[in-house]
């Protein structure tokens, strides 16, 4: 494999209504083992995936919220979140199960476009 690539996962969908964020997270965990330069960016409804206090027991759907806390153990430390997406949803970092770096509309286009690979979920 040799060279390390910059690979970003963009999480912009809400949890549970569709499977994208869950299966997206599963692919992040696998890629974490390949010693690439992995990052996650949470924008739009993707910020909902990190909200504390999810209880999926009544739906019987697997709650994947704890997996986000496990990302560090996989050496995936570059987590970014769009401040504006949080703001308009009335949320702050205190509402989240992990603490991504707050980024804004100035920084995000640079972050995205410097990647070798961007995978949207």
């Amino acid at each position, binding site marked *: 494999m040799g060279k390390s690539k910059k690979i970003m996962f963009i999480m912009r969908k809400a949890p549970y209504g569709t499977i994208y964020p869950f299966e997206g997270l599963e692919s992040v965990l696998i890629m974490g083992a390949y010693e690439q330069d992995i990052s996650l960016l949470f924008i739009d409804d993707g910020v909902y995936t990190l909200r504390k*206090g999810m209880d999926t027991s009544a739906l019987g759907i697997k*709650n994947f919220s704890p997996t986000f806390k496990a990302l560090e153990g996989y050496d995936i430390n570059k987590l970014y979140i769009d401040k504006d997406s949080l703001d308009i949803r009335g949320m702050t970092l205190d509402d989240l199960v992990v603490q991504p770096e707050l980024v804004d509309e100035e920084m995000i286009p640079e972050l995205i476009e410097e990647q070798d690979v961007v995978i949207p979920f």
Partner: protein
Amino acid sequence: MRNMLHIINRSPFYTKTVDTVLKFSKKGSPILLIEDAAAAAAAGSALCEAKLGNIMRDHPIYALKEDLEARGVHKVIEGIKVIDYAGFVELVEKYNTCSWA
């Protein structure tokens, strides 16, 4: 004339479906937010409170408890009625339905 229950399942931040429902539903017709639409019922967002508050002048709004819980929403915007699946069934007893995604 009877009103109809309008069921929305997509996030209003993602699709423009809410606008369509407002445009094409009768005054007084209830709106039920399920699945990803439920997340928008969370208290705390000035934008959602303004928008849903505005809608509630013409339409009763319901949000599905099981979907709220799954998304970590424990407090909803004032005026939104939280119902569980049994309550969903009761709404369908009263109204014909129209689903929007």
